[in-house]
């Protein structure tokens, strides 16, 4: 499908253009060299934060893993040591604390990879300039007879460069 990429110098101009195009029913993606979280939320609405479930369940799974590892292995081979308890609470909690955090971090990282769809090494629409000092606005979901209109809107809002790109 055809898409149009506009490169902007100023973020407010880009966001105004993005807001108008989104309201008109186009799909918009914003590229930026810095995070624009609040600014984008303000114009285009907020996003959900699913990572928190990954962080929470990661930590819970890690904790259970720690408990099973310490108590379970003690049960597998009962080895009395100088009157010390076979199932000891403090070390169990300590090890479980560490594994809870470790699993929380690892599973949050996996969550990030799933939602951000990374790693991806294939070809996707991208312009090197958005890693430096340009802000990109990719508009897709455009009918063929509307491409000219979209390009004009982008230029009207002050895009420095507008180009047609091919979406996979």
């Amino acid at each position, binding site marked *: 499908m055809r898409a149009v990429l506009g490169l902007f110098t100023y973020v407010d101009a880009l966001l105004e253009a993005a807001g108008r195009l989104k309201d008109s029913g186009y799909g918009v*993606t914003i590229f930026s060299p810095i995070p624009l979280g609040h600014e984008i939320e303000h114009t285009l609405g907020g996003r959900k934060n699913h990572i928190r479930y990954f962080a929470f369940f990661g930590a819970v799974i890690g904790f259970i893993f720690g408990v099973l590892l310490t108590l379970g292995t003690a049960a597998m081979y009962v080895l009395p040591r100088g009157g010390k308890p076979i199932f000891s609470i403090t070390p169990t909690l300590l090890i479980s604390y560490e594994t809870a955090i470790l699993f929380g971090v690892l599973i949050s990282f996996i969550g990030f990879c799933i939602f951000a769809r990374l790693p991806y090494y294939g070809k996707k629409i991208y312009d090197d300039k958005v890693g430096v000092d340009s802000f990109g606005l990719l508009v897709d979901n455009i009918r063929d007879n509307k491409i000219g209109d979209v390009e004009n809107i982008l230029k009207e809002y002050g895009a420095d460069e507008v180009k047609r790109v091919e979406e996979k």
Partner: protein
Amino acid sequence: MATNLTESGMEKMPYKEVNDDVVRTMTHSGKGYYIALALSISVAVLAWGLPWAYQIFTGQGVTGLHSPVYWGIYLANFIFWIGISHSGTLLSAILFITQTPWRRSIYRSAEAMTFFSVLTAAIFVFVHMGRPWNFYWTIPYPNQRQLWLNFQSPLMFDVFAISAYMTSSMIFLYFGSIPDLAAVRDRVTGWRKSLYTWLALGWRGTDAEWHWLSKAYTFFAVFIIPLAVSVHSIVSWDFALSKVPGLNKTIFAPYFVVGAIYSGSAGIVTLMVILRKTLKIEKYITLNHFDKLGILLLVMSLLWSYINFLEVFTGWYADTSFENESLIYRMLTPPFAYMFWLMIFTNTFMPLLLIFRKVRSSIIISLIISLGINVGMWIERYLIIVTSLPRKFLPYAWHDYFPSWVELSITVGSFAFFSMLFLLFVKFWPSLSIYEIKEDIGIPMQKEKGH
């Protein structure tokens, strides 16, 4: 009022200049860099690698370890390096949560410092082992007779805490660098292009990617803070859970955590002074950064001194002969007394100079104070171990410990090993955070905001 300075005190500049400068630090190396790298590799091999090989081949008898002192300078180095590791990731996470602007220029190198010092510390565990090839015995793995680890041993807590900390620090460092690795990917050619394409995971800087990055990063920061605190508490319990006079103190966990943040912050100051000069990045690491780090050092110094005083006081207040003996041995018996009072001078009195703004803004005095603090912190760890174990309960078992040349050489080598890792890091990794410095510069807006 419009100002030309950013929130963190840097001069504002075009975004492109940040990319140019950071890529330059990675791709342009002078003769001095190669000399430093060659020197650090050589010293690491000669002072660490070879004596360690000799120790493995000959046995632990080549060290000064002898009954009743089986923990010596190796474990002092282990705690020292774990301590140095503390400020990087922990400070970065705390400053991220509190949204402190001056974090942005320094945190990347600080996090790298964490990772490399944990690595150096971890290798000391191997050096300390008589049979390092049996290291895997400390890792839980299924085995035929179901004979698992003894999880009630503080040394096992260590294995878990440090592996979790090392893994999490590595992820924290890598994760925060992904957008910068992509920025570098777009600028370089040849083998570097392939390397950074692979490392950047295909990052394009879309709004969705930034959204998930910032959410996940916040969780990482939240996870890292309690983890870092637990790691050094657990390291302290290696000692505090024993019954040795001078070691079995309940104050050890906070004492170690505060000491670790203290030495780590001093490590950051030392590193920043060297980095900004050698990489010519003075405009990113400004006097304002040193001013803020100076205040942090001052606060940590006061905290550390207070806990240090308490540690001595509680021992003295208990008034048991064993406890008194270990205090006399540490504080009044040469050569340890010289070391102890030097530590008090460098870590309690010298940092008081940081009360003055002029001192905090002086690079050279900051460097001297930070180096002094780390000398003091190394002494602290050394004294904790080597003045407690030789004076246990029964005087007929007393035996003084002095490190042998092998132990001293490996200690020197560890500093070279750390330097080598860091020198490689500055060429392979963006040592400044490109996107966060840009955030500090501000978002380019056509219409000026009202405030």
